[in-house]
């Protein structure tokens, strides 16, 4: 593989590297779209951001030195999503940082089973979680990422992935089992 270090900007990749990009990165478009869809909570915005992320990945591809291409791309997608959110929904970003658990989730498996047996309700519950919780759940449960990959994508230390998932899951469980799922992100 020849290295191209002719500065930055679109179009500097030579044809071999373009080929490599298409083989390594483009196939992860579904993963990119799915993460963006859940972080932005909408398909239309996710399309824009997924496309922008792909172009950024293309631009920065010279900086990708092998390894996990999906994690590398998802890292870019995540950053692009947060930049987009800060710009377009600044209020949301502020309230999203309320990460405290206000009470422990009731561990009643039956009511949980009933509450979670509904796609719409699950979607709503997941969408009401703070973005930091939502992203680890989406990466783990939908994308099947390992802790190592989650740490790389979200830039949190690998040692804290487990507790981040723990808090996210408890929060989801709590959101599902309470009566009004819409109100979950407010004070309980």
């Amino acid at each position, binding site marked *: 593989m020849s290295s191209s270090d002719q500065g930055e900007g679109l179009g500097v990749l030579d044809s071999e590297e373009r080929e490599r990009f298409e083989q390594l990165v483009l196939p992860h478009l579904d993963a990119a*779209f799915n993460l963006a869809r859940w972080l932005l909570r909408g398909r239309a915005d996710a399309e824009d951001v997924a496309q922008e992320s792909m172009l950024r990945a293309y631009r920065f591809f010279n900086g990708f030195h092998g390894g996990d291409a999906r994690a590398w791309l998802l890292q870019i997608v995540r950053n692009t999503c947060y930049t987009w959110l800060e710009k377009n929904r600044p209020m949301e970003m502020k309230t999203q940082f309320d990460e405290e658990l206000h009470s422990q989730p009731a561990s009643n498996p039956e009511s949980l089973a009933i509450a979670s047996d509904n796609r719409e309700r*699950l979607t709503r519950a997941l969408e009401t979680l703070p973005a930091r919780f939502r992203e680890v759940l989406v990466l783990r449960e939908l994308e099947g990422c390992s802790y190592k990959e989650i740490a790389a994508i979200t830039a949190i230390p690998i040692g804290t992935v487990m507790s981040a998932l723990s808090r996210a899951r408890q929060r989801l469980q709590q959101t599902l089992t309470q009566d009004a799922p819409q109100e979950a992100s407010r004070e309980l």
Partner: protein
Amino acid sequence: MSCEHSHTVLHGYLDGELDAARASEFERHLESCPECLAALEAQETLRSALQRAQLYEAAPVALRRKIRASLPAAVPDAFGLRWASMRWIALAVTAFLVAFVGWRMASNFNEKKQYQAAEMIDAHLRSLQSGHLTDVTSTDQHTVKPWFDGKLDFSPPVRDFANDGFPLQGGRLDVLHGRTIAALVYGRRKHVVNVFVWPTSERDVAPGSGSQLGYQWVDWRKGGMEFCAISDTSTTDLDQLQRLISQ
């Protein structure tokens, strides 16, 4: 809930991310901690609900096309393929020949696995719909094994591992790439594990594992049979079952 394990280690265990020593330590803890046991059950319920709901949203086809078109000069032709230089063609031909003549190289096997994994997950999901799990329901290997006779052109190894925590629940016929294969169904706590078995003429391959959409699988080839164990239980569990089957 006050047991601190239920907030931390339990999740590593659920995700198959603990090393063997910590996993068995937690399993010992589970035996004496009803809180953690209930919490684990709740988390497993939540996980299977998330999986059943199929929340993964794939990119629209139009977006894929749009992106390909917007990459500067990356994709000139209609099929999205570009052989930029003769070197690439030579490389591709060489790779193809190597793969073909010299059995399968590891990476090739992995690619095939990815492809197969999606089918395995589909087959696993189909089996969980009511009434599809087993064609022959029995915990007795001497009932399940003969049931396959005459229905398959090979004889899958059927054994019960109830003593090791994997009770045999029965068997079923399934179809992969148009050929009929055997599916053995095992229980693991409240999870269902499907073990798909079919004959192969290729050489043995050590177990490899993967994970997609929250499902874990372990696949391997041994003694002319290809195996794929798939479940939403932890990879640690699947590794253990793999060892039992391979004994």
